[in-house]
């Protein structure tokens, strides 16, 4: 094969610089039957990068449940697809863009959103919602955070939030939810995980499989430049060092306007019936799209790089193949009908060029000005890459004693003051300052935007008639602190909480997507965390009926050798059969009864039965030490996540869905970060988030658990929710709870006078006004973030 004389010769050093190990190099030689040229080496290096090949995670990911009766498309395509009834499907997926967002927060975040949106409309689905799961270092100075760190973290947060807003707002998709968390471990490695949801008609879903020998291959969208070369392989597949800022040129640049045109043009082109297959150019750009389309279709492909629209002159085949310029697509059209496709793109003012065709025999041939620049068998490249069963080392058990755990406050401690502090902590405080920078209402489907319900809820308009029947609910969750303490249990909690949030909006959880953020897979203890996480996810997804339909793995989230907490983020999708029955978190009417639901079977009929005092208190202290309260008030992060009971979670979720269908309750809110007291307070504040004038509602609540006041107020055990109900419907609600074997206990009332009062065993432990609590909760994030 002819190679240009000016081309760099591939040497072991150059292979190593591409992250190719000697073993992998031998495998390349075996596949090609010769040495690769530099372009081919580049292609192998990106396709076999951790980011694209999942070489360290694949053996574990196989353990996840991916099938279900509603699953139309599981992992392996651009996005997962589930049946949502009436001939419609939902496509959804979550992906990380962590490293670019640290190097260049604004562009990193924009292109993260852009990438996931393309994954959705590549499937033929119109994006209808975006959620973002974000993790930053602490934004206020404290125990492990200097003033300088906090300032830097605020700046990163600001850039990421502006980036997400800038892209989604211009593109015209509402950003309806997600979560934001803060831990010192994310200071050098923030997490930006973006989830997109789209809908389509079931028979109009598109796949990325090249088909039909001789069919033309068409390049559409933005021109190819030198930006983002090796974004995926170098940036996303290696840990950070002091020099990482020099990788800024590796970060891609987003153009949401171009993407909006691409969306409309692609959906319109698909309607012509002349599109056979389509694949977006995301990570590894033209390389990944050509190789994967051919590999999936069992065909070959031949393209001519000279025909690729280019933004710069003098680009080498290596650069063109590896560029990660954004807003580009590759599609295969039906031979003889390509003009129909080209006409649509012309109408939208976009470049669309036939760059090659589908061939027989499985070889991907990349030509450049009449010379062969690369010639690689597509299937072995895409599917027979290296697979690693990386060493796993179970860490030595943490030795902790009572001294390491949270000790209950002495009698007389001002729990109201602690509560105000908790409400004002960045993790708990209202995220309105962030979410108001996102367009949450474009497309006029948002039934519950950020903070209105436990999950984001968007209605589904029939594509033809516009009629509305159903709605979809989505929630993303993941508690890195808990996963650090116990990855398996922490992962189960992530699934349980996301599903519980969906159920608390009234929707039935049906499927999940996951974004697995971890440190270096080359560290055996990280692989242990990963393996444990997969087992936890598998168990929880099976128990809760939410198969994983896609997602991504992000390894190498570490800087200078220090890993982040293992942070699986789970997005759960649910269906609400009647869009008018969304459950929201806000209390509504004076006199409504507040009921605590608890799915734990141990509580049913025996709520006050407690284990022997000594065992109970040490188990409680250990569990409580992993809570948000323990971290915020005592600076203690230790112990174990709360024990999880998946059967109890399932009972509670089924019960909440039934209550929504019966239109029986006034409000519902699950108990999670910050515990019961925060849950009740948020239900009091809910009205502000919904943009209405705040009413002077308050609560009077009495608790009498055998635990301490603090754990009763702030404990984060799962499978629980708070509902409010009109007195006349109380009996019916309690009856439904009984049917689902969920313990339901009246704990108080919604009152008129704006006071917030919780008694523990007859003694007022929190006594404040809604106004004081709301001020702490509503404005603290804004105050912190607008500090320069």
């Amino acid at each position, binding site marked *: 094969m002819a190679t240009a004389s000016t081309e760099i010769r591939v040497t072991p050093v150059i292979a190593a610089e591409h992250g190719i190990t000697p073993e992998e190099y031998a495998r390349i030689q075996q596949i090609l039957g010769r040495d690769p040229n530099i372009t081919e080496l580049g292609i192998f290096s990106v396709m076999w990068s951790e980011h694209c090949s999942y070489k360290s995670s694949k053996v574990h990911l196989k353990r996840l449940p991916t099938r279900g009766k509603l699953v139309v498309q599981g992992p392996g395509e651009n996005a997962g697809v589930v049946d949502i009834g009436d001939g419609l499907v939902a496509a959804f997926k979550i992906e990380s863009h962590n490293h670019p967002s640290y190097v260049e927060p604004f562009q990193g975040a924009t292109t993260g959103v852009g990438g996931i949106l393309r994954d959705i409309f590549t499937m033929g689905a119109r994006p209808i919602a975006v959620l973002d799961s974000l993790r930053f270092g602490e934004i206020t100075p404290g125990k492990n955070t200097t003033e300088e760190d906090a300032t830097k973290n605020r700046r990163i947060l600001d850039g990421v939030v*502006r980036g997400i*807003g*800038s892209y989604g*707002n*211009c*593109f*015209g998709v509402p950003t309806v939810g997600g979560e934001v968390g803060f831990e010192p471990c994310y200071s050098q490695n923030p997490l930006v995980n973006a989830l997109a949801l789209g809908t389509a008609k079931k028979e109009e879903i598109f796949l990325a499989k090249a088909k039909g020998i001789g069919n033309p291959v068409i390049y559409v969208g933005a021109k190819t430049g030198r930006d983002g070369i090796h974004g995926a392989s170098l940036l996303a597949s290696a840990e950070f060092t002091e020099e990482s800022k020099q990788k800024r040129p590796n970060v891609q640049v987003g*153009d*949401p*306007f*171009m993407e*909006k*045109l691409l969306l409309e043009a692609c959906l319109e082109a698909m309607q012509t019936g002349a599109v056979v297959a389509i694949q977006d150019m995301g990570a590894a750009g033209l390389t990944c799209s050509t190789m994967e389309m051919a590999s999936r279709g069992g065909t070959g492909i031949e393209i001519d790089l000279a025909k690729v629209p280019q933004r710069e002159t003098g680009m080498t085949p290596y650069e063109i193949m590896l560029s990660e310029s954004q807003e580009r697509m590759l599609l295969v059209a039906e031979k003889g009908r390509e003009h129909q496709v080209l006409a649509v793109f012309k109408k*939208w*003012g976009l470049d669309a060029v036939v760059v090659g065709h589908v061939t027989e025999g499985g070889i991907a041939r990349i030509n450049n000005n009449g010379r062969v620049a690369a010639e690689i068998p597509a299937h072995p490249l895409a599917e027979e890459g290296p697979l690693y069963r990386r060493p796993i080392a179970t860490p030595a058990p943490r030795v902790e004693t009572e001294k390491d755990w949270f000790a209950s406050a002495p009698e007389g401690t001002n729990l109201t003051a602690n509560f105000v502090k908790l409400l004002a902590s960045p993790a708990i405080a209202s995220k309105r300052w962030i979410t*108001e*920078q*996102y*367009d*949450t*209402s*474009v*497309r*006029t489907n*948002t*039934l519950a935007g950020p903070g209105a319900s436990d999950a984001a809820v968007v*209605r589904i*308009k029939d594509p033809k008639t*516009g009629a509305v029947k159903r709605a979809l609910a989505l929630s993303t969750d993941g508690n890195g602190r808990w996963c650090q303490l116990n990855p398996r249990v922490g992962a189960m909690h992530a699934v349980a909480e996301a599903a519980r949030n969906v159920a608390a909006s009234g929707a039935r959880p049906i499927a999940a997507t996951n974004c697995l953020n971890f440190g270096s897979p080359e560290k055996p203890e990280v692989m242990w965390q990963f393996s444990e996480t997969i087992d936890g996810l598998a168990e929880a997804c099976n128990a809760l009926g939410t198969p994983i339909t896609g997602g991504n793995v992000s390894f190498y989230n570490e800087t200078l050798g220090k890993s982040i907490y293992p942070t699986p983020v789970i997005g759960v999708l649910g269906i609400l059969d009647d*869009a*008018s029955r969304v459950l929201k978190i806000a209390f509504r009417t004076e006199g409504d009864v507040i009921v605590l639901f608890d799915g734990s079977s141990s509580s049913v009929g025996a709520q006050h039965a407690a284990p022997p005092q000594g065992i109970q208190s040490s188990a409680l202290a250990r569990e409580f030490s992993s809570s948000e309260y323990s971290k915020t008030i005592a600076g203690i992060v230790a112990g174990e996540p709360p024990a999880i009971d998946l059967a109890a979670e399932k009972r509670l979720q089924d019960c909440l869905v039934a209550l929504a269908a019966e239109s029986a309750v006034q409000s519902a809110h699950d108990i999670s970060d910050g515990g019961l007291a925060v849950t009740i307070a948020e239900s009091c504040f809910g009205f502000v988030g*919904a*943009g209405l*004038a705040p009413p002077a509602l308050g609560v009077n609540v009495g608790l009498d658990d055998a635990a301490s006041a603090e754990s009763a107020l702030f404990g984060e055990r799962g499978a629980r929710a708070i509902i409010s109900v009109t007195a006349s419907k109380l009996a019916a609600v309690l009856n439904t709870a009984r049917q689902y074997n969920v313990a339901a206990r009246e704990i108080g009332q919604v009152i008129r006078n704006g006071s917030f009062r919780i008694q523990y065993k007859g003694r007022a432990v929190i006594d404040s006004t809604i106004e004081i609590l709301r001020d702490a909760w509503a404005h603290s994030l804004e105050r912190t973030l607008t500090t320069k």
Partner: protein
Amino acid sequence: MKFGVVVFPGSNCDHDAFYAIGNVLKKPVEFIWHQSEDLANCDAVILPGGFSYGDYLRTGAIARFSPVMKSVEKFAKTGGMVLGICNGFQILCEAGLLPGAMMRNSGLRFICRHVHIRVEQTDTPFTNAAQKGQILKIPIAHSDGNYNCDEATLADLEKNRQVIFRYATPAGSDDSAGNPNGAVRNIAGVCNRERNVAGLMPHPERAVESALGSADGLVIFRSMIEALVGAAKATA
């Protein structure tokens, strides 16, 4: 009676305006492509929200040169009813069909939230079904909604009663507490002197069903429908 919704490259509230008129109010409506100079015999034209041409230069600055805008200008000059929402308002200002210009929001950030606006004038085809002083709860979603103009223009606007909506508190006071973006004198929407062209930054098409948090935007579209019915009767 027929409404036309213009589609610029980058319009992203075109579907929402179409849905509000076609599905909620059940009136005839069609899309008008930006390269068309034919307004398809529409009786009222809506320039929807979005980021026309990406708005990378200045909001609405490129869209105003679209072929369709020539026809919209002609249509407006002959008394045709034109409503610009958000980016549409920005385009109308750039095109000189409405006075004033938009600056970046005073907080320098994109803001999306429900705000309250007060209906200032009811003798326009966009507000005739509303009560003077009526408070409407309607969402905004923009970075550049800080309306401004020179003193003389401002005096003119007030004198000719062209300010048709002002940002207000829920109770109806037009003080700074109700002003989300720094707009001069809390101006949320204005009309031209002839009162047949209007623009506003809030999105009435997003406030047409209580399930979405408010149906207060309906009164604006109902006003337009009433005006069109009235005009049809007058010529019949």
